[in-house]
């Protein structure tokens, strides 16, 4: 029984991470509408309930920059060299399209769930 629960928990954790992976790109692109460096970006996301560890964030930033969606520059601030990131115009366009896709998936999911559930389950008891 314990192993079944454990395996269900493991499966949930894997699926949760998979589900979050795509949405992290949207969150990072949206957060970088304001210029930030890695550490403050991570903190900003965490404040909004999106925890992301360094080993995920920095490779993601690097990939988005390679894909031409972000621009970065090294600059000194508070006596330390920091790399500042900001979304560029291509990134803005891609973000808009991703958001549209996100909303479309959300609406479709809603429709699927509403179709399956009873009205009480969807809207609560009347």
């Amino acid at each position, binding site marked *: 029984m314990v192993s079944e629960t454990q395996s269900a928990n493991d499966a949930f954790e894997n699926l949760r991470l998979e589900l979050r992976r795509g949405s992290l790109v949207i969150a990072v692109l949206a957060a970088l509408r304001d210029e930030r*460096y*890695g*550490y403050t970006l991570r903190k900003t996301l965490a404040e909004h309930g999106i925890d992301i560890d*360094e*080993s*995920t964030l*920095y*490779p993601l930033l*690097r990939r988005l920059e390679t894909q031409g969606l972000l621009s970065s520059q*090294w600059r000194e601030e508070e006596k*330390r*060299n*920091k*790399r500042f990131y900001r979304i560029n115009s291509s990134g803005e366009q891609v973000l808009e399209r991703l958001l549209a896709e996100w909303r479309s998936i959300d609406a479709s999911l809603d429709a699927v769930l509403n179709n399956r559930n009873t009205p009480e389950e969807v809207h609560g008891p009347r």
Partner: protein
Amino acid sequence: MDLVNRYLQAVEFWLPTNLKRDIIAELSEDLHAQIEEREAALGRPLASAELEDLLKQRGAPIVVANSFLPQRYLIGPLLFPVYLLVLKIALLGFLVPWVLTFIGLVVFDSAYHNGWVAHSWLQNAESLWGSLWNSAFVAIGIVTAIFAVLERFQPKTHFLETFEPKSLPAIRKTAVIPRIGTSVELAVNVVLAVWIAFSLTSPVVYDSPNLRITLALHWYLFFLAWLAVVLVSGAVSATNLIYPYWTRRKVLIRFLSECFGGIMFSWMLSTHIVAQLSITNLLPERCAWLVSRINYWGARGVPVALSIFLVIAIANAWIHLRTIDRAKYSACIPSPTT
């Protein structure tokens, strides 16, 4: 901070040269920012244990470095099943002939034979295992190297991803045993059974004006055993004709009867089974010499004969068991109850 620098150095070691500087600078900045924030919250410098915890949370240096790199494979997930299949075929096609050749050399080549007899059982096993392992290692190495090269080409050519639906192989009806094959098998078994039954009446198994072969007096023991094997095989063929599906029971019966037949044949070879040979225009002394050579090589050939029979029996059983498994998981082919 010595610990942080050591950590950064360890991460740097696993990074490609062109990325080292950039990644380490950013990682260093992030680490220092986190440490400063933690120290500000505590109002004191971090203790060594706290710093260790912080670095542990970041992950092992090789893991952190790897997260910055694209996923790389020696053999990727797409090619891997093909690799495994080819590896199995290569090992089977390479090692089985190798073992048979080795046995053949030990039996027929006097130098190998003397060397084998001169050493203890353990020494021989050690030497056999050593050479077998070397051969297997080379076979695995060659297959792996070829697939590693193919892996480099696959993303460029997509040769595994292109296919034509019409060129797909037709559905295999492997679950059904073809009745024509079974009929031929049954006919052969009947002819063999009749011939063996007749041969049981006299040790002269072949008698023509030019050639006469007489077996030793214990011939009937082996012929009786073969008659039993042929009858069992015929019975399996007859049931296959009525119910043309392999079942585990049928496979087991056939496997056991094939093994038994093989053991009896090999045993017979070792018992100087040929008693007399008469050939027209050949002196009796010459015929006697021929009989002794046949019996001598027959006895020397026992391990080879035994190995061949065993390989055939195992291969047949494996093929039939796979047929049963395929039928079980095939939606469009009726599956027999086993």
